[in-house]
Each structure stands twice: as structure tokens, then as C-alpha cells.
């Protein structure tokens, strides 16, 4: 066992070493750890600034897209390669979105449509003179049908069948006669809600994998409704109340799918991956609810 003096010396030595260690630790703190901490804080600040700027830009883009939709302008940025493109609705049936508005929404597409429409109107006049150029054959066949029939409605029906379906030999089915009846206000609201919901969703989530995923999910849900498969519908005399053509990218951002949804006064026709389905009134409501609730509009 140590003597008193030895013990005192031992205590002093230990105290001296501890003080020395303490000073070294303090020096290390100021020379190494504090600069490191400062650098780390600086990096964090820079990263936060970049992130804030990124999200701010993104918010601005989304806001501008929404504003354009609200004001009836082009609701997709030009750089976007995805999502909804076209919407048109007749004023006669629902009066929700006019054709003029649709033209404003997408002038390029509406121009093309106007051309087709002009052609249709021209053929419906059933004049003696044949139209020019490539349409002469079509004109002749349709004109013969017109002559053989009593009513002009049949002519337009046959003509439309030829041009839209591609000259099928089958007897034309015309499921749009009911569309002449005035739709109820509830249905109009439901259809309009669905259309707006779809468009808003597709325009909001452009060019993202999530968008394609959510849209695919919605399509799956639509399939679960057991819609009745049907032939490709023929366009009626009147314009459809509205029409949606949805383009979007897949997960890799390469392929694009096209979902085509047409609604008339009381019936809906859906084209899901190339197959056509017919929706009755109840199913139409279910579709509306699906997009209102599931998609969170």
C-alpha cells in the first residue's frame, strides 16, 4: 500500500493528466469538430435552399396549370408530353362546356375537328355536285344511299358508319338515338364532375410515374364495374356531350397509352386498352363516384 506522500503524488499526476486531456479535447473541439459542424450546417442550408427552390418551381407550374384550366386556357404546359388533350361538349344537351370553349382549350385540335365537321356538313347537304379529290368515292357511295333512302338521317347514319367504323359490312348499330332525349340534371352534373375530375387529375400529375400508376389503378377499378363489352360505337349526328382522350406515360416514361372515354346524354362508352365497353346509368354513377372518392377530387 502506498504511503501518504506517494498517494498524494499519484493524485496530482492523475489530476495533471486529466487536465491535459481536457485541454486537448477542448482544442480538438475548436479546431476539428466546430469547423466540421459549421461545414455541415452550410451544406444543409444550401441543400434546403435548393429543395425550396425546386418545390417552389413545381408549385408554380401546378398553379399555372390549374389557373389555365379555371380560365379555360391551355391547361397543360407545352413541354408536357402526357395527359389529357381534348375536351368538347355540345351546348344543346348539357350546356356545361360549349364547343367554342373546347376550341379555345385546344385550337389546333379544334381546327382539325372543324375541318372534319365541315366535310360532314358538306356531305349532309346532299347536293348534286360531288366533293373534290379523295372523297369522291365516299361521296358517291353515300350519295347513292341518300338517293335510295327517304330520309336524310339515314344518309348521315350510313355515311358516318362508313367513315368512322371503316366501311364495315355489318348492319350499322346506332345506339345514340336515345341521346336525342333530354338528360336529367343529375346526370349532367355527374358527367361533368367526372370529366373535370379526370382532366384535373391528368393535368395535375403530368409526366410522372405516379400519374400513370394512378390512372392505371382507376382503369382497373373501372374494369371491376363489369361494364358490358360492345362494338365500337358510331358517332351520332349530334356532338358527344364531351369526350376525353387521355395520353400518359408509363413507368419508364417511354410508351404512351390512350384511354378514350365518350359520354352522351345517357350512355357512356369507354375504350380501355383497345376494348370498348358500354355503361348504363347506374354504372355511370359508379364511375362518377369512383373518380370523386377514389381519386380524391
Amino acid at each position: 500500500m502506498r504511503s501518504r506522500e506517494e498517494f498524494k503524488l499519484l493524485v496530482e499526476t492523475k489530476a495533471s493528466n486529466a487536465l491535459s486531456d481536457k485541454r486537448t479535447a477542448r482544442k480538438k473541439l475548436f479546431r476539428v469538430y466546430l469547423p466540421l459542424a459549421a461545414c455541415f450546417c452550410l451544406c444543409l442550408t444550401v441543400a434546403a435552399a435548393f429543395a425550396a427552390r425546386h418545390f417552389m418551381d413545381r408549385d408554380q407550374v401546378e398553379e399555372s396549370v390549374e389557373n389555365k384550366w379555371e380560365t379555360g386556357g391551355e391547361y397543360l404546359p407545352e413541354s408536357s408530353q402526357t395527359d389529357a388533350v381534348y375536351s368538347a361538349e355540345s351546348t344543346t344537351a348539357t350546356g356545361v362546356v360549349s364547343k367554342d370553349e373546347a376550341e379555345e382549350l385546344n385550337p389546333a385540335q379544334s381546327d382539325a375537328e372543324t375541318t372534319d365537321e365541315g366535310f360532314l356538313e358538306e356531305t349532309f347537304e346532299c347536293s348534286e355536285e360531288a366533293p373534290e379529290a379523295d372523297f369522291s368515292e365516299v361521296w358517291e357511295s353515300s350519295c347513292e344511299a341518300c338517293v335510295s333512302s327517304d330520309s336524310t338521317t339515314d344518309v348521315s347514319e350510313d355515311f358516318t358508319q362508313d367513315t368512322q367504323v371503316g366501311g364495315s359490312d355489318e348492319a350499322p348499330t346506332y345506339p345514340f338515338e336515345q341521346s336525342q332525349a333530354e338528360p336529367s340534371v343529375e346526370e349532367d352534373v355527374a358527367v361533368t364532375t367526372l370529366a373535370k375530375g379526370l382532366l384535373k387529375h391528368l393535368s395535375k400529375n403530368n409526366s410522372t410515374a405516379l400519374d400513370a400508376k394512378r390512372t392505371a389503378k382507376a382503369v382497373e377499378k373501372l374494369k371491376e364495374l363489369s361494364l358490358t363489352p360492345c362494338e365500337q360505337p358510331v358517332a351520332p349526328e349530334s356532338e358527344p356531350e364531351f369526350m376525353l382522350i387521355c395520353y400518359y406515360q408509363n413507368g419508364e416514361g417511354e410508351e404512351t397509352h390512350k384511354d378514350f372515354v365518350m359520354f352522351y346524354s345517357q350512355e357512356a362508352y369507354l375504350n380501355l386498352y383497345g376494348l370498348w365497353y358500354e355503361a348504363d346509368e347506374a354504372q355511370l354513377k359508379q364511375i362518377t363516384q369512383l373518380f370523386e372518392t377514389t381519386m380524391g377530387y
Partner: protein
Amino acid sequence: MDNGASSYRRFLNGDKNAFDEILDLYRESLIFFINRFVHNLDTAEDLAADSFAELLVNPKRFNFSCSLKTYLFTIGRSRAIDYLRSAAHRKNVPLDDTAAQKADLESLEEAVIKSDRKRRLNKAIEGLKEDYRTAIHLVYFEELSYEEAGKVMKKSKKQVENLLYRAKKALRTELEKEGFEL
């Protein structure tokens, strides 16, 4: 204020001899107390030196709210427990001469425990649990109050009372086995 605290205050005011007084007052009792945990005198001395060095390295840590003895014994107990935890991971082979150690321990025991009756009691408490030993040592050999013993052991006064009750019960059984007159 106890003698230790007043000496320490003088040391903080610049009186170098005051620290010698503190060493004289508590050196042996602290080594003896730490030895109860580590069962090795050299280690106990080393840990006691660490405890005293704490007074020199961090002088502002002691706020004079308790006695210096309580403060020193609290540090000593913590160091001893730390040592036992670290020693559990390393297998040390003791190189000390056990006979010399035994003699040193006996002389230290004589220095700390004056009464022969208490020394016989000290032998008996070696067989008790660690908490019982510590409580009995602090209260009966170091003559600390229940509160002070509680501070050293990091227990409440009530817990110390319960520990002592159980310790005395266990000690009674041990002493009866050895034929100690109660």
C-alpha cells in the same frame, strides 16, 4: 460544514496545504470503502486517487450542498462500479502477493475501524449481498446519515432503511452461525 468541506473551501481559495488535510481525513476510509467493491487494495488505491483527482480537475462541480465525505464516497462508488463493469470484459491475472495484500488490508482495517467489536462485525458482513454491505458500511462504519448514505448509493432514505433492515436480519443469521454474542 464538516472539516472536509471547510478544508476544500480553503484549498479553492489558494491554500495548498488544505488538500493534504482532505487526503488525511478521507484517504484510508475511501480506499477501504472502494475495496469492498473491487477486493483489491492496489486497484482501490488507484480508484481512490482518481476520486481525489476529480476534486482538482473539476473544482466547481462540488457545490457544498452535502458533505465532502458524501461527495467523495459517491465518486468512489461510481468509479468502483465502472471499474467492475470494464473488468468484466477483461480477464486480469492478479500479480500481487496475497500475503502482503492481506497484511495491508488488516492494517487499513485497523486504521479505519477502531473498535474490535466492529472489526468482528466487518468480517461477518463480507458474506452479505453488495447492497447490504455498502449500506452497513456507510451507516455503521463511516457513520453517515441515512440521507447521506442514500446519496452515495443513489437511493432514497426509505430504500436505505429497508436495505439496512434486511441487511441486519441477514447479518444476525450470519453472526448466530459464528457464535457471536448479540
